[in-house]
């Protein structure tokens, strides 16, 4: 399996997809930090004042022809919330890693390179296990890159944080984001293997990995599922719900949370349980159905 992993890493490093994905993360982080910085500038305050029809020197601005005072300060709530707002909560990170891992999974079959693999490594267990491991590694790499890119970009633009979180809390949040992202990527790999179609994979990424479909299901369940026990609890088990929970709660991950189906396990516990369920489901489909499909 190590040899398969080495080969895949070689292909990724020598290919473009990995670097394009990494560049997107960095550009998004820089763009977000730049926009956040822009709204802290006097020019932005001036523009807002002008747009709401107030004369220069009124409202938040300083009279006498001096530059207006900024509307916002260069201070973010906390680090995890910032990363979440930039890349996680929007589904940008999950869709990016899902597409990347899915394409890696699909490429072996669409290019027929799998011929070269299955001839010399006949164990499909090894093959699929390695691909799932690679997807998890990609998710880890991109989650860490997201953390690093956001930290660097916001530092570059002179931002500080209102609450300085302990490193353990940041690490725990990062692990939880990794778990959820990995679950999304594994599901994408399963879709790629079962469909062997780039179109199906992209559609899946757009509908599911962006959390769009999950949000729709959640909306329908809460709107029409009142009184139906299964529909009432279903949204709790959606990965999109995990993304929402992680978005709204940057702090207190291990504290009891009344919003959850099992409040005592806390956000960390619940996200871990739901992610694990989806990971096990994806692995089961991989080893039962995908493994038996002919190359």
């Amino acid at each position: 399996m190590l040899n398969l992993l080495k080969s895949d890493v070689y292909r990724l490093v020598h290919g473009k997809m990995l670097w394009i994905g990494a560049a997107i993360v960095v550009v998004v982080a820089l763009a977000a930090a730049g926009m956040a910085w822009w709204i802290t500038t006097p020019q932005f305050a001036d523009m807002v004042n002008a747009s709401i029809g107030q004369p220069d020197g009124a409202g938040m601005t300083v009279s006498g022809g001096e530059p207006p005072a900024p509307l916002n300060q260069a201070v973010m709530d906390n680090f995890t919330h910032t990363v979440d707002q930039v890349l996680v909560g929007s589904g940008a990170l999950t869709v990016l890693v899902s597409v990347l891992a899915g394409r890696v999974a699909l490429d072996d079959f669409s290019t027929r390179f799998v011929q070269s693999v299955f001839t010399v490594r006949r164990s499909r267990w090894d093959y699929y296990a390695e691909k799932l491991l690679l997807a998890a590694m990609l998710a880890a790499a991109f989650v860490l890159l997201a953390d690093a890119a956001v930290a660097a970009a916001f530092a570059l633009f002179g931002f500080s944080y209102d609450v300085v979180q302990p490193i353990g809390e940041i690490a725990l949040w990062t692990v939880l984001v990794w778990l959820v992202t990995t679950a999304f990527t594994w599901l994408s790999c399963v879709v790629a293997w079962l469909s062997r179609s780039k179109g199906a994979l992209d559609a899946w990424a757009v509908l599911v990995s962006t959390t769009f479909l999950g949000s729709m299901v959640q909306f329908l369940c809460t709107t029409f599922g009142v009184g139906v026990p299964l529909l009432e609890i279903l949204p709790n088990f959606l990965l999109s719900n995990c993304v929402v929970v992680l978005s709204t709660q940057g702090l207190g991950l291990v504290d009891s949370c009344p919003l959850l189906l099992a409040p005592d396990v806390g956000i960390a516990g619940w996200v871990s349980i739901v992610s694990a369920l989806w990971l096990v489901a994806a692995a089961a489909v991989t080893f039962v159905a995908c493994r038996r499909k002919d190359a």
Partner: protein
Amino acid sequence: MPVIETRQLTKTFGRIRAVDGVSLAVNQGDIYGFVGKNGAGKSTLMKMVCGLVTPTAGEVRLFDCPPCGGNPRIGVLIEEAGLLPNASAMENVMAKSLVIGLSDAKKRCEDTLAAVGLDPASRLATKRFSLGMRRRLGIALALVGSPDALVLDEPFNGLDPEGTRAMRQLIMHLNEASGVTVFISSHVIDQLDRMATRYGVIAEGRLTAEVTAEDVQEACADSLRVRTDDLARTTALLQDRLPDVRMRVGADGAIVMPGLTDSAPVATVLRDAGLLVYEMTVQRRDVEDYFVSLMEGGRHA
């Protein structure tokens, strides 16, 4: 020892039996030509041999063992070569060499590419390769790890005459110089005829014949064909006067003498006996016709 062996190998897709109980053996040093019409089951059988398709029934044995774990001793080129389109030739072979876990992979990959006439230093993406270059790279991928046997499915498809010749020479060189056993399917019978040592013929999923190169040579050799007004007397006379000449009687009552192209001794015997000769022709049987007849079920039709 058979390098590749199938025992009652069967594959069904729904109700269709693509391969139906095929048992064949490719021996060490063979160039085994695998012949059949489109859809006869060649590719499916080869994919089962290579582990790309799971058999419905039967068994594949490689080097006298069941194929388990992996077998870098087999190199494969099935249909279109499985190339990474955005990678260079070197990156393609390196990716495979890492799968195998070769030591000194870079050097060996460079050697492999050089052996098939591709430049290891080229950065050109394989999606920009000509068909001939893709085929060569496909062979290079099959050769990574110095396999003892090659499974090649239609390696001549789409190649121009020069490319076809180069591919044939490369395969023969590998067989002769390195002792690589080759299991090759092709529609280009003419090319197979120049290199195969044994043949298997498959039709509708069944192996209808296995013949050697000598069998083909004999069946397709020049022969004298004679038809007279008295078959029995002619046969007796020729057996008596020309005892060294092999002969058989065709379905249309003609006497066929394989290997005999000089009609003079036969004509003399028949004239002296006063027999009326309806036909006396030298004919060469086309190799393609021979294989078509084998595909249709006749072992020595």
